[in-house]
């Protein structure tokens, strides 16, 4: 609205100035001074880099890890080797990493193709799962895709690979029944298929119905094009990315941690802990925020410097850009510190007084980061003078 009126006002002023110029006085036309607190930044390289080198690279990694997980579960079918089970557990954790980091940009095909609920539904329905394991039902991947999400995906595989997680996160391979092994392989195949579908949606066509539809990556990189009904401008893409970062910081702090944490040990609820069977919760949470760092910095940890949201922020306020980077790093460290010197998993830490103090420190750091992103970074969108 303000912009509209200022344009009209400016037109009128220019009209009047021109009239004024028709006289003999050579007075310099006065133009109103409009305070300009906007900043310039050429976003194309940043968007291209974040799309290709962070998001697409992450989903490609997930697809690769999905293949590896399937192989690892297949090796369990007739195995009596504990090492094979440990390897399958490691393959599950390896697949979990790009998935959790990808939650910092959970928009587009992961949602529109319902891949998120298929792969990461919680809670499980262990009683239906057990019934099916005891039944004579066939476990082919296509059949299972038609079943409810609460008996498939990451956490069902986790439950079968690690056990119930109450007292430990280890399992003897002898405890794995033939039906469980068969089901695990089918679940891993379902997982592999969805991970590939997600990868294809970003790199080949975002619409499984239309092979000629653009890859989702191109929709981000080609924002503003006439045929792009999804991203109308580079501003839209940056807004998507920044809100994605805020979304996962909020979810980790106010959902994943806060829900099971409760107000006290008495109200803590371990049934709400994510990845509670494998005791991978803290790694999950840290990976969520590492995902934020990937988007912010523009590269994965240890890779050569490339453009990320930090460059956009720095164009407006270099001090702020550095502060946000520190706050992200701090959150990751505080989450990793929750385990303490006795290496407590999250589900035990929330039942331990010292552990709870460390959890609170991490929650405070998350809250601080969320406030900074919402109050300091998000407003930059309206101050950005796109070139």
């Amino acid at each position: 609205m303000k912009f509209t009126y200022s344009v009209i006002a400016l037109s009128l002023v220019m009209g009047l100035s021109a009239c004024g110029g028709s006289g003999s006085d050579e007075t310099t036309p006065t133009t109103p001074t409009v305070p300009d607190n906007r900043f310039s930044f050429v976003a194309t390289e940043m968007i291209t880099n974040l799309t290709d080198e962070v998001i697409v690279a992450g989903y490609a990694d997930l697809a690769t890890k999905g293949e590896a997980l399937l192989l690892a579960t297949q090796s369990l079918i007739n195995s009596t080797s504990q090492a094979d089970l440990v390897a399958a557990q490691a393959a599950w954790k390896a697949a979990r990493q790009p998935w959790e980091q990808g939650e910092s940009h959970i928009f587009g095909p992961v949602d529109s193709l319902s891949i998120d609920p298929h792969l990461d539904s919680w809670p499980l329905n262990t009683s239906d799962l057990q019934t099916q394991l005891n039944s004579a039902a066939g476990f082919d991947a296509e059949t299972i895709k038609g079943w409810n999400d609460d008996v498939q995906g990451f956490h069902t595989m986790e439950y079968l690979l690690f056990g119930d997680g109450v007292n430990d996160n280890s399992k003897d391979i002898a405890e794995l029944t033939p039906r469980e092994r068969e089901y695990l392989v089918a679940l891993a195949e379902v997982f592999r298929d969805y991970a590939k579908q997600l990868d294809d949606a970003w790199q080949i066509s975002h619409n499984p119905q239309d092979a000629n539809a653009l890859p989702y990556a191109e929709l981000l990189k080609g924002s503003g094009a006439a045929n792009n009904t999804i991203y109308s401008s580079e501003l839209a893409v940056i807004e998507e990315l920044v809100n994605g970062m805020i979304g996962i910081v909020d979810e980790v702090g106010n959902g994943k941690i806060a829900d099971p944490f409760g107000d006290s040990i008495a109200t803590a609820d371990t049934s709400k802990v994510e990845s509670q069977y494998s005791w991978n919760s803290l790694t999950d949470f840290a990976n969520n925020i590492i995902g934020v760092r990937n988007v912010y910095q523009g590269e994965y940890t240890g890779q050569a410097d490339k453009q990320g949201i930090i460059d956009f922020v720095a164009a407006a306020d270099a001090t702020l850009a550095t502060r946000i980077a520190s706050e992200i790093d701090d959150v990751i460290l505080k989450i990793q510190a929750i385990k303490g010197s006795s290496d407590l998993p999250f589900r035990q830490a929330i039942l331990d007084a010292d552990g709870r103090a460390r959890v609170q420190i991490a929650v405070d750091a998350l809250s601080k980061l969320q406030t900074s992103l919402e109050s300091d970074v998000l407003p930059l969108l309206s101050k950005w003078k796109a070139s």
Partner: protein
Amino acid sequence: MKITRKSNTLMSVMMAIGLVGCGGSGEEQSTIVPEPPVVTYPAFTDITAAGGETTTYDANNSGHGFSTPAPNLTENELALHLEGDVNFEASFTTAPNTAHPALDGLGPVFNNADCNSCHQRDGRNSTPFLAANETRVKLGSAAGIFLRISKAPDEVCTQGTLENNYCAPIAVPDFGGQLFHRGVLKARSDWESNAFVGQADVYLSYERSEISYADGKVVQLKKPLFDVENPYDAPGETKQSANITSNLLQDDVLMGWRNGMPVFGLGLLEAIPEADILANTDENDTNGDGISGRANWVFDAIKARDGVAHPVSLGRFGWKANTPSVRVQSLGALRGDIGITNPLFPDESIAGTSLHDAYLTRTGFVDTGSDENGEPEADEAFSDAVTFYAETLAVPARRNVTNSNVREGARLFEHLNCTGCHVASFTTKTAGDIGGVPMSDSLKGQVIYPFTDMLLHDMGDELADGRADFLANGNEWRTRPLWGIGLTQTVNPQAGFLHDGRAATLEEAILWHGGEAKNSQQAFMVLTLAEREQVIAFLMSL
């Protein structure tokens, strides 16, 4: 509105005067400078704050555009909204689930396990897609679309009374009013061979056609068709079976697709004064514009609960305006679509059917829909929060309103009389209840631009589902609000438009308009390509 329109015209005139004044500075005083035509634009042309003070500007370009809380909520309201947000995403499981008792009670037959799956990111659901080389797809956990079902009435119901159940659709015996294509593992007696199957299997396929403009441009269209097979009361049976015994497959059973709708801005729509909606009714088309506009009057579960003698209210929500409030709509969906009983709807929607009776007997009455104290599966707090959430999601601000094509599109939108049904603006009431409780201050007295008259219109045979719903006939649909429509596929790139998601683009959606909207559709079709694109540009700015 009219004042703003005058001011727009005034500005054009002022600028014209400015130009004339400049011309007059030359020597040829006698030259008559033709006045440029004064182009007037509708009052809504320059509006960005579509939801008044509930409008969001932080997420109105991206996929977060439907998912932010109204910025004018109080701190306590925001906390309630965020609690509702968690509930909206809560995924339910089969009862009993001793590890997660708060989240059990799913079904036993249902369409989806959480709200978000049919209102993805608070918007429309994904359009089902067919696998390569397949002609139809079986609806499963990825489907956000379902079928409403009812028996054909013997006569048109025009006046709701207790005796005729207020003109409510007639339930299909042993099924109900909505087809639940999914189930918990043991929902059916034949669960070992039909695991996780609901009342019946539903398949979706597409009938394809095309439509051409005078300039030769051709648009491909698709219309979703359904096949219903394998009903629980006659497993394996189809419409092609030699001897049909299922109640569901009888010829007088009517079925119609329903997609999920966006859930932002709903409290504002409920706060539009009833009289202002009724003022636009024109049942007999007395103004001769080919557009009638009828109100639906529907059963109101809140009035019934409160003992009101004639529990009927103006219908506002649902594709046929068959529910009166966000609360009835939301909690009805919680009980129906998901199968979670709640204080307003304490009984399972399939209670009393053979499927339910057999399920309870087979599973030992552990999933009756209420606990040992008679409490429903979702409590009052859960219900209140999820309702408040849907009432108070922000409306995304419009974008690109100064773009010349968007402005011309706004002018054409009015010129084509799209505004005959898609009424631009209302002002919400300043006091009172919504959904039976005092409304939030955030919703009061807001000048909003939803682009709907909230009334029923005959949209022609091509869009008709042939199912009456209270006073709405088989051809009638409630005018969809258009606010936020330009962000639809930013929120969900797989989303479609119209009640069954048949339109992949806004252009296709316009072309499907028939009946009372036929004149506007035909006027759109004779526009030049550039003008048609301007209309779309305007819609994309909403």
